[in-house]
């Protein structure tokens, strides 16, 4: 051990520079990771949805879980404006049942809602489907055991846990395709939903869908039913009402045999299951004007009608708080309503100008 006097300049320089080098590496990689991961700000925005939840300060008594059949079909603002329901849609593209389960677990780390509404379409998937959809759901989750388990359950054969822990390793090759948006949103991103609702105001009337393909086996996969079971248990343990719904859109096809199995499950577990396909008239949906993509998803008018219908049911069935009467929450909702109205006006203005949306949806995908 050298005494202080014996320490020469180099003895100090070497460790100092090494530490500085490690720090520089960590900071560089941290910045590059933020730069290189996809931002999902235009076009394909679904990858931004899950993370937006963590920025929302409002309490939520109703949580929706599921795929595009929830985040495009139910206006959370309409639910609040018409019924005072404070809700959030934890939806993402092709959200698989186990992902919904772990998102529920994740949500319970922050709050305990009164009602959880789960859309059942994804029950048809019993296996991990695609990396890109996995990423859009999982990357946005904050780190917890729920995220870890969600990743483990969702990974396709070619995926690795390490690529989720360090997304840099997965996205490093994006260096050659970075756009201005990547630099612009390194540190913060613009919201793409209003409490999880993704708005579209354009109209494309419902088309005639192809006849459903007969299946060899109509049994819903064991894995997804298992996670549904776990979801029911988790809700029960936390005193949450679980409601199963099938959104009122006809395609992708929802087979009667599947419907029966979900109904049986709901009966067996004393849960409510509502297939809104059979209630399209009562909702008041006019699919010549209430859809923006030929009937796959609802547009704003459709989503508001559906929200109105489902809101009535929720208000009638549960003792939910009217948050319009809670000033501190109402104030926060006012900001969302403002954004909602601005977004609607902006989309309508673009429709009026071009006859189509250019800053949202497929036309806005950046190359």
């Amino acid at each position: 051990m050298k005494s202080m006097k014996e320490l020469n300049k180099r003895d100090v320089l070497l460790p100092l520079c090494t530490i500085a080098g490690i720090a520089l590496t960590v900071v560089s990689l941290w910045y590059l990771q933020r730069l290189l991961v996809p931002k999902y700000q235009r076009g394909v925005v679904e990858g931004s949805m899950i993370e937006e939840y963590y920025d929302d300060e409002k309490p939520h008594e109703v949580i929706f879980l599921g795929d595009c059949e929830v985040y495009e079909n139910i206006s959370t603002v309409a639910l609040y404006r018409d019924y005072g329901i404070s809700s959030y849609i934890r939806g993402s593209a092709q959200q698989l049942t186990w992902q919904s389960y772990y998102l529920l677990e994740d949500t319970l780390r922050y709050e305990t809602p009164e009602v959880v509404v789960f859309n059942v379409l994804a029950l048809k998937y019993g296996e991990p489907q695609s990396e890109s959809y996995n990423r859009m759901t999982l990357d946005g989750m904050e780190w917890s055991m729920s995220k870890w388990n969600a990743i483990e359950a969702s990974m396709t054969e070619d995926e690795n846990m390490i690529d989720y822990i360090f997304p840099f390793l997965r996205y490093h090759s994006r260096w050659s395709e970075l756009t201005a948006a990547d630099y612009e949103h390194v540190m913060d991103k613009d919201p793409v939903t209003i409490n999880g609702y993704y708005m579209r105001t354009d109209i494309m009337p419902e088309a005639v869908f192809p006849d459903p393909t007969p299946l060899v086996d109509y049994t819903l996969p064991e894995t997804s039913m298992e996670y549904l079971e776990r979801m029911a248990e988790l809700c029960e343990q936390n005193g949450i009402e679980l409601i199963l719904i099938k959104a009122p859109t006809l395609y992708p096809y929802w087979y009667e045999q599947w419907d029966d199995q979900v109904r049986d499950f709901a009966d067996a577990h004393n849960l409510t299951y509502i297939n809104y396909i059979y209630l399209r008239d009562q909702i008041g949906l006019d699919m010549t004007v209430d859809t923006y993509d030929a009937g796959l998803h609802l547009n704003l008018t459709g989503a508001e009608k559906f929200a109105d219908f489902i809101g009535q049911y929720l208000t009638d069935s549960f003792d939910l708080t009217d948050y319009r009467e809670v000033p501190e929450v109402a104030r926060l909702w006012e900001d969302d309503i403002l954004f909602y109205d601005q977004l609607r006006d902006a989309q309508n203005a673009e429709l009026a100008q071009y006859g189509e949306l250019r800053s949202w949806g497929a036309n806005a995908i950046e190359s």
Partner: protein
Amino acid sequence: MLFTSLPFIVFVAALILVYYAFTPYKERWALLLMASLAFYFFADPRYLIFIGVTALTAYVFAIITEDYNAKRKAYLKANKESFDTDSKKKYKNTTARVTKLLMLLALLINLGILAVTKYTNFVIDTMNSWRTEPLSFVNIIVPMGISFYTFQTVSYSIDICRGTIKAQRNFLKFLLFVSFFPQLVQGPISRYEDLSQTLYEPKKFEFQNVSYGFMRILWGYFKKLVVADRLVIALKTLTESPDEYKGAYVFVVMMLYAAQLYCDFTGGIDITIGIAQMLGITVKENFNLPYFSKNIKEYWNRWHITMGTWFTDYIFYPLSVSPTMLKLSKWSRQHLGNAVGKRVTVYISCFAVWLATGIWHGAAWHFVVWGLMNFVVIMASQELEPVYAKFHGKFHLKEKKGYAIFEIARTFLLMSSLKLFDCYRDVGLTFKMFGSMFYTFNIGKLFNGSLLELGLTSADYEVAAIAIVFIFLVSLYKALIGEDIRVFLYQKYPLFVLVCVVLLVSTLVFGAYGAGFDASQFIYNQF
């Protein structure tokens, strides 16, 4: 575990940590042995049997040989009065014969394992080409790095027989020499006398060693991931559709493969040497700026050095001075004249070396032909030496700098042409493709965007080109200054650290790894 796989990186990082932080420094060699065996075990537990048998054979025969020699020597010393010159010579000859026999037995077993595992299917394939009823291939595993560790044990057995080294009496220590994991994958082929000097001695943590090793590892990954694994994508496209990519494209293959192979192989060696250096172990250099060579002989003195010297020391020299060759040399001098006679033994020994080099590289005919083509080119250039000398003398070319560059370019092109055998992996096809450069005039295609249809974007080419220029400049520094650039950088330590950060970050960003890229194996893994 591939060198570029995350488990390998974690494995090495954990080893270095445990090595310096938690292992008494006298026992560090034991930790290295455990790590090496674990490395092999995780690759395939069956490999351990093969490497174990090879190591045990070499170990046992070395001990027997050394003990036998010692006893005979002691007997001779104790009874020197009873021996006259003739009987002493006879006694020594008997000892030498028995020693040689023991060595041959050891070689027979170890080279036999290599031959059976690696070349059985090659022999069957060759036999099938003339048989009407083809023999079926055998399902046999080829242990990772078998060529490398077998050659290490062979040189050990021969050196023991020659009496140039002392046998390692501790089997576990010897097993470490055979199985030392960084060099197990792709060499270099270490000699016992070299590696043993640092492999077993207690090692203390030396900051400079660790820093040098770390930068060397980063440099290896940079070459491998940024250049080699990127270029391999275009190379695959070009060589898998030879009918589509003839003429000028073959020249592109030559250039890309020269860069790819260099970065792949030297990158792997950099990682090997870097890891060893971080562990305080000196492993021999395997490359010395091969693309700066002015002739083929020099090239082979600079490329895969440990393999070249191995073949020279254990095939060329023993063969050249063997009694049969000496007799042949004498006979040919008498009957064919001095000029031809003195060449006969050199030619035969050289032929044997290049035949063995070709076969060592792989169990396929294109490797054999590649080896023999090297032989032809080396012999031709040797024969033409007087003509060159006359030409150089007449025009004073050797004094001109431009001529040196011409010589370097000529050697590079010649060696790159020979490497085409490895690209196309078919002798006939290689000749055909090489020929197409001279009769298919399609150079315009290279400038109409067709290079962007090979799986690489313009950004990929730009990154590869910048990296190659960077690698070239570092090599040029060594060629001009005569020392490793790390020595200069280490003196200016902040710069050293900055270069490490740049290398690490740029490799992570620009490296061709992960989804979208095939994790291509290091080329020399297969040997």
